[in-house]
């Protein structure tokens, strides 16, 4: 394996980021027109300008809330659904239909259908929930299914109640799968929430600003918002990772 640790790794990571920034700079120089592919320096300037405005932070905050709410709801219902499916084979069959269908429906269809049925500002949260639910459900159920039979036997001979078996054995034994599901969902949650924001355009949202930057052909601003989304999404994933470490 090629996975160095510690300072060496951070050094390598910085060098890699720097390398790609250089590529980006060269690319923008080749294009020449700053609104098609603005240079990193330009983008950084635009981002700093944005960061000086309260609206930027409010948009970040609201979008972050939408992502968190959608993901939390997907996790909760995914967990409850997986629990039901682990207990009842009927529930397993019933839930397997939406779980596999949603997985292959394009995000855009989901957004457009949601826009038809729901009022604008909850569409992003709903879309985020819908995209993350199958991932959470499938991962958690896979975790529950992979609990070794040895533990089931242990619980059976020692007369451990079903509730205790679930909470103290099944869930902790599935933690690896639950964690993987959550980390997979983080990226998905951001992408789908922002996409839904672009199409539903609530006034305060990162997606709305992305769209208006595009309409005004404001390349640097478009890039700056994108960089902001990427950074925030990475931070969010880090926070989830950190929260999961306690388990």
């Amino acid at each position, binding site marked *: 394996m090629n996975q160095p640790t510690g300072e060496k790794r951070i050094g390598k990571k910085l060098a890699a980021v720097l390398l790609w920034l250089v590529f980006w700079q060269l690319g923008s120089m080749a294009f020449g027109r700053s609104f098609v592919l603005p240079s990193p320096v330009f983008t950084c300037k635009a981002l700093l300008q944005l960061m000086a405005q309260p609206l930027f932070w409010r948009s970040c905050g609201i979008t972050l809330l939408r992502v968190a709410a959608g993901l939390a709801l997907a996790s909760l219902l995914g967990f409850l659904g997986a629990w039901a499916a682990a207990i009842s084979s009927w529930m397993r069959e019933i839930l397997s239909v939406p779980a596999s269908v949603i997985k292959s429906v394009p995000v855009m269809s989901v957004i457009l259908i949601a826009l038809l049925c729901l009022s604008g500002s909850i569409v992003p949260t709903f879309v985020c929930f819908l995209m993350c639910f199958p991932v959470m459900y499938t991962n958690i159920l896979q975790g529950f299914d992979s609990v070794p039979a040895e*533990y089931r036997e242990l619980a059976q*001979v*020692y007369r451990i109640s079903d509730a*205790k078996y679930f909470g*103290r054995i099944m869930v*902790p*034994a599935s933690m690896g799968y639950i964690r993987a599901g959550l980390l997979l969902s983080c990226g998905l949650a951001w992408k789908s929430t922002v996409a839904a924001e672009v199409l539903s355009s609530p006034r305060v949202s990162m997606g709305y600003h992305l769209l208006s930057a595009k309409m005004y052909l404001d390349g640097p601003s478009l890039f700056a918002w994108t960089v902001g989304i990427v950074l925030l999404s990475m931070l969010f994933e880090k926070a989830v990772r950190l929260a999961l470490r306690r388990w």
Partner: protein
Amino acid sequence: MRGDIVLEGVSKTYEGKPVLRDLSLRFEEGKVTAIMGPSGLGKTTLLKILLGLESCEGSVTGMEGRRPAVVFQESRLLPWLSLKQNLELVCGPGKDREIADALALMELTDAADKKPAELSGGMQRRGALARAIAYGGDILVLDEPFTGLDEDLKERIAGKLSRQWRESGQTVLFVTHDSTEAKAYADTIVKLNEGGSL
């Protein structure tokens, strides 16, 4: 007082392969019985049948309504719980005394807060024993409980345990492939042979 545990004409087949054939046995209440036999003969299977974890042909009586305390052939300590939490999980609340005593008996008091992965194989084995003892069932079912313990420790611990069992009239079934162990700690020895018993 409960009755003996009686097996009559018990047979077990795994995927067409016979493991136990027409086995008839009696395990006496209040006695320590060693089940002996080379590996792969169906000793573990026999215990699982007694515990209701495997089905079989024939009849098993005397296990109904019992509260078995079990040591499986593998230690089966839950890796995310400390040793003490592992004991608490099966014992339920209000058993602090029994848990502390069992850990002390197995010489594990200092390891109580360690996770299973931090314990040696022998310590895990004793942990599984401590769990069964703290649980305090009315029958102890032990699958090769002393394997993995070094000789001194095995003698000390098995000695303490068998003395306790004799004094309290505990019903114990334990599997071993070591005849010295069987002779030293059991009242009765049952030898499993190819598809039956002696």
